[in-house]
């Protein structure tokens, strides 16, 4: 068996297809994948610049959930070593600063601009010197 067989249920939604892919050039070392064009474009337009360890390319994979609501849920951010996780309702964002990855699931009621201007900055806050954007993010 390898990781590609199709008959396993994808209970964690690990293998949701992400057809919208943007890969950056010299200025923006980013690779952005999503199943939602609005999210992919918003992330792309925010123009991540990664200055993480070893100048590794920032990989960003964000899945739009079909359901779910923040519904007044408190935002919780958990940091442990290289991992930082933002959790709010059915929105989960993960930043692995060692592997320079952002992974996440965004609930259906969260608009892409809110993701870019509010949630991702909250996820990145302690590493703000490493992650700077030239777009919608406030440069710190």
């Amino acid at each position, binding site marked *: 068996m390898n990781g590609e067989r199709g*008959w396993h249920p994808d209970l964690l939604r690990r293998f949701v297809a992400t057809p919208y892919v943007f890969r950056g050039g010299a200025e923006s070392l980013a690779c952005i994948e999503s199943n939602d064009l609005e999210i992919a474009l918003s992330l792309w337009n925010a123009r991540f610049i990664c200055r993480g360890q070893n100048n590794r390319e920032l990989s960003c994979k964000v899945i739009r959930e079909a359901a779910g609501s923040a519904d007044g849920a408190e935002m919780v951010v958990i940091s*442990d070593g290289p*991992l930082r996780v933002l959790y709010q309702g*059915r929105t989960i964002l*993960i930043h692995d600063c060692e592997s320079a990855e952002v992974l996440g699931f965004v609930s259906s009621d969260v608009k892409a601009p809110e993701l870019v201007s509010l949630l991702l900055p909250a996820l990145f806050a302690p590493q703000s010197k490493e992650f700077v954007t030239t777009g919608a993010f406030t440069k710190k």
Partner: protein
Amino acid sequence: MLSISIDETVLPYQRSLCFAGARCDLRTNSPELVTLLGDLSISGSRSNSSNFTMRVVVAETLRDGTDDPYFRGLHHVVIASFGESNIFVFDILRRTLSAHVSGVVARDDSFWKEKLIPITLGVLGAAIGLVPVHCACLEVDGHGLLVAGASGAGKSTLSVALAQAGFSYVSDDWTYISESEDGIVAHGTSAPVKLLPDAVRHFSSLQRHALRTSMNGELAYEVDIARTFSVRTRRECEPRWLLFLERTEGAEVEFTPMCSAEARNYVSAGVERLPVRLHEAVALRERTIELVGRLPCWRFRYGGSPQFAAEQLLDFVVSRRQEICA
């Protein structure tokens, strides 16, 4: 925004634990949680060399109990939450579990025993050399019997009947298999046995217990098998045989040999698909599945009561043991 930094400087209590043969280094700020998990820890005689780290921040001021579970995962990270206050972050590559829980959950023995520990072994299993196999496991005179079958085939009911017939009970639903120097070892956890409502027809002692909704939404009896049925339990054994259960209408039994490919396919189908980047964990898992597939394997069709099937199985195992000894 609630910001939680899980740093070893704020987690002064630590303890080395063992679950299904895997060593767990626990760090937490709650002495009660250390005691609770210490009581659930099983010091296996054949614990494997792999380990994982569990760091748990307990927010004593939060009184929230557990809510419905919610799981998501991408690449090497899996998140499990049980309400807003109880969040678990699994990092499969680094073999860590970072968690934030309420004071109520930190003291909820059944939550850790029935949910969190089995979930942890399932999620981190591939990285720590454990393959979760959807089967029951029983042992007699050092010989382990894996009893596989689809949900509803009667694994748990037959497990109780076999335990009453003289087998030692290891597990009834999920068994964790690891490699050892001379083969494989099957591990159970301290999770309760789960019996569907109609099991009360076969086991009258269940009448003293209440049905409750289990994690998958089924109504079931979830009971401690040793206390409820006064039977022997073991935490691990060396599997010798693998049986696939199939129910038939009449009171009859039939043993049919199966090929190892079918056994391998069954085990493979039950494990979670992993991303390509976890290829080392996948390779480790494949090797163990291959070893499980080498076990002598039969299809066991049976009808009638679980006690009748248990008697037939006991005769079968006795004859197989004689073959091994001969």
